[in-house]
């Protein structure tokens, strides 16, 4: 399970990856932050089960993040999916940003749970013209 939580080179179909992610994030409380691939959520806020927070997908296609601006609730899982035939790398702009993916080749995914409210700006370090924002409320 830990392997599935950390992998960002998942080749599994979307549904399987989603289930694995939910199960793994529920099971794994001590995620290794050094990979920065996935961040385990802290204890769930009262009245909000993690299973109810649908992962929010950001598609990378034609050298563009879609949606370029996204608003999500605290504790939501974000999944970047690279549908381009070139690799991209998601990197946070602001100091201390938790966003830093490995190189994402075609069909690779990068998952992050943002458990602190705020505005998270990011860009592609290979193609810096590509930018996006996630607002966590």
């Amino acid at each position, binding site marked *: 399970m830990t392997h599935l939580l950390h992998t960002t080179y998942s080749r599994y179909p979307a549904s399987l990856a989603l289930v694995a992610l939910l199960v793994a994030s529920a099971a794994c409380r001590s995620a290794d932050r050094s990979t920065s691939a996935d961040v385990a959520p802290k204890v769930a806020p009262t009245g909000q089960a993690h299973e109810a927070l649908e992962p929010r997908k950001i598609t990378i296609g034609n*050298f563009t993040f879609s949606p370029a601006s996204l608003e999500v609730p605290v504790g939501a899982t974000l999944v970047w999916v690279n549908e381009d*035939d070139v690799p991209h790398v998601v990197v946070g702009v602001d100091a201390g940003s938790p966003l830093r993916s490995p190189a994402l080749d075609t069909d690779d995914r990068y998952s992050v749970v943002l458990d602190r409210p705020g505005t998270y700006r990011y860009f592609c370090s290979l193609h*810096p013209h590509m930018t996006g924002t996630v607002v966590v409320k």
Partner: protein
Amino acid sequence: MPEQDRDPKSATVTRRGLLKCAAWAGAGVVWTMQGGVLRSTNLIGAAQAGEASSRALSFVQISDSHIGFSKEPNATPHVTLQSAIDQIRALPQAPAFVMHTGDVSQLSKAEEFDTAAQIIQGVGRDVRFVPGEHDVIGDNGRAFFTKFNGSPDRKWYSFDHGGAHFVALVNVVDLKPGGFGQLGAEQLEWLEKDVKGRSASTPIVVLAHMPLWTVYSEWGWGTDDAPQALGYLKRFGSVTVLNGHIHQVMQKVEGHVQFHTARSTAFPQPAPGAAPSPGPMKVSAETLRSVLGVSRVTQRSHDRALAIVDDTLSG
């Protein structure tokens, strides 16, 4: 015709003068005036026929080999890279060295660097490198500089060859969001010092991966602080800027500065704005080699523009 284009020993125009004319004509043909008779030979033949110049500058630029790339239109970029190397080895007049202007690898993986190095070393000449953004993923280029420059601390550098001064720049690290390529303050400071005091008649060759002029801002094809770098080179009589990154030949002349981008040895990219994005351009297997290539750079006179000839791999 200027004095230096005439051979003092005879009445004929020197080979250097004629090759200069050929360079400006843009054709691989040289018109020779010998004994009052006009004759044409192709550029390579003329180079062989003339006496060897002790100051001859000659090198080949390759770029964007993207070893590790495995999609359309080229699932085997190592094969086309090998073809490029074979083509360079087969040149009638061997270049003094080869310059790779980056994106050696696709994903900065050690095995990609190793495969590329193995193939490129087969050219049998000195090879020098600058990184592309694909070569500096995850470590700001540490592995790349260690392998291709000999040390993780040797990033940008300069050297002399054939009477020209070469500066090899890195404009793919510390890229800013929403921006283009970037040289950075430390490198600019180094460049200013490096060229200071050099004679303005020294030809300057600048090598960097991303274009040092804005080819197409919508796709990020440019370098934010290039104008500052070019400012340090303003006083030189001949500046040649050789870039890669855009996987197609593009040229521009601005005063004494000649800008040129080379083809890739892996896959072509669309012309600016000709496609929704700058990804690999799918072409048929038959046409692939005609849109990949290398660039030969030569010079015969120390105070004029370098001659750049772009060869495709279908030759």
